[in-house]
């Protein structure tokens, strides 16, 4: 795997973790479309106050590596319930 692919994969994980992409579903192994990823990056960029480019540019990667709160930025009630169920299991 090239470094570029690794970076893309880490970014996808980051975007899922903070609510910009739907969380991965192990039953369907849903793949993210290029458009979906770009849309998520744009929302993340708008939320974070950096230029909206839709691509993983240096400023975006820097923001993704900035220390932060672990709660998602886009919170769905479904997400919170899932996490609580996971904890109980």
């Amino acid at each position, binding site marked *: 795997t*090239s*470094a570029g692919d*690794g*970076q893309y994969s880490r970014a996808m994980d980051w975007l899922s973790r*903070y609510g910009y992409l739907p969380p991965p579903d192990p039953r369907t192994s849903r793949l993210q479309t290029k458009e979906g990823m770009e849309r998520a990056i744009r929302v993340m960029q*708008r*939320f*974070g*106050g950096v230029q909206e480019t839709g691509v993983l540019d*240096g400023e975006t*990667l*820097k*923001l993704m*590596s*900035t*220390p*932060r*709160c*672990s*709660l*998602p*930025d886009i*919170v769905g*009630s479904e997400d*919170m319930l899932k*996490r*609580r169920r*996971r*904890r109980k299991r």
Partner: protein
Amino acid sequence: YALSGLKWHKTDLTWSIHSYPSPSLSPGLPKDNVETILTHAFKAWSDAAPLRFRHLPSDGSGAKAGGDIRVSFSRLLHDDGYPFDGKGGTLAHAFFPGRDEVAGDTHFDDHEIWSYGGDSSSTDLFTVAVHEFGHALGLSHSSTDPSIMRPYYQGPVKDIHNFKLDLDDRLAIQQLYGVKDGTDTGVDPNLPRLPTPSSPRATQLSDPSFHERCQGGFDAVANIRGEVFFFKGAQFWRTQQDGSLLSLNPAQIKNFWIGLPPGTNKIDAVYERRSDSNIIFFIGSQYWVFKDTVAMSGYPRPLSEWGMRTKRGALVDKVDAAFTWAHNGKTYLFSGGEFWRFDESRKDKQVTRNPEPGYPRDNSLWAGVPSNMDDIISWGEGDAYFFKDNFYWVLKNGGLNQDVVTPKSIAVDWLRCPAPPSTSTPNNPQIPKDCRCDLRGS
């Protein structure tokens, strides 16, 4: 601002502390200070809305105090679906109000170096606590700047005694709990004064690896998979892509890089090969190729295979520094004041490994940087970083002949060491390669 849709249906709230920051990592924060800092953080919210916060102290029996908002310092997996991730990354989280057992729980990552008014090598507890208590009261992340509810850590707020929430945050909390009238601060008016912020220097000196890490003089420095490794003796430190140090304590080379000879206590140079992402180690007159963290079979092999001959025709028996320059994708090896350039994109690289014609050349061609560097990496936007003793010099992308290259401190900028009280750079000589000043004086 954004609201979670959840709130407390009361305005008198209680809170308690279940655990404290680990004294070894956050020595500047005794328990009393933690309590005072958290009390001030609650006060920020009760100054803006009609809320009252009452601290439930431990009864001394070891029994855990309860309350609506329970604060703890935890590491990694801590059974709430939001594992922490070691130093950096995620710092803390809190659960929104409600009847759920975790509602109001506020957790701080105990792998962080928590401080009160510390420098950039630590994380300000007050700033993060105000943010997390915002969640515990029902606020979500805000995209507004300024807002304490922005998800990213922005550094410490200036003065915690006079801290006031910004408009966005005041409107958010008032939307949930109403507008405050009167002067009741909602917390004990006789709050103890916090001492002068702890000196970051004192904090760092308590760290046992401080001297080794902050003295500089690294055997080798390498950019591997976007992280910078600083090798010294039998150990190494690792700085992540965001500039944070993975740990203040060094890791043992033998425990991480599997396949080097037992007793390895000095590595001359290391670099990651661009064509296949393998990692090349040079020790004395031999070299090893690693796939990830394990040496490939058939190594070590003799350095003579690289075909490096000095201008006098002698075979090179040791490499001082090695790096691949992002500017042109070529690999450079340095030894004894000379350097050779290699094109490793050639498909026959495994068979013949010869320098490009016209080499060696003198290190002095890299104007403005020391000619006998410890090691070099490509970093940032393709810039070349030269490391020597406890300083580094940056040649901007493609630049070879920059007139003035100001040295900066490795210890301060890369390894979370405190800035020295006086100047941190050597006297800036006109010809830095002739510098004879005490580079380790920092």
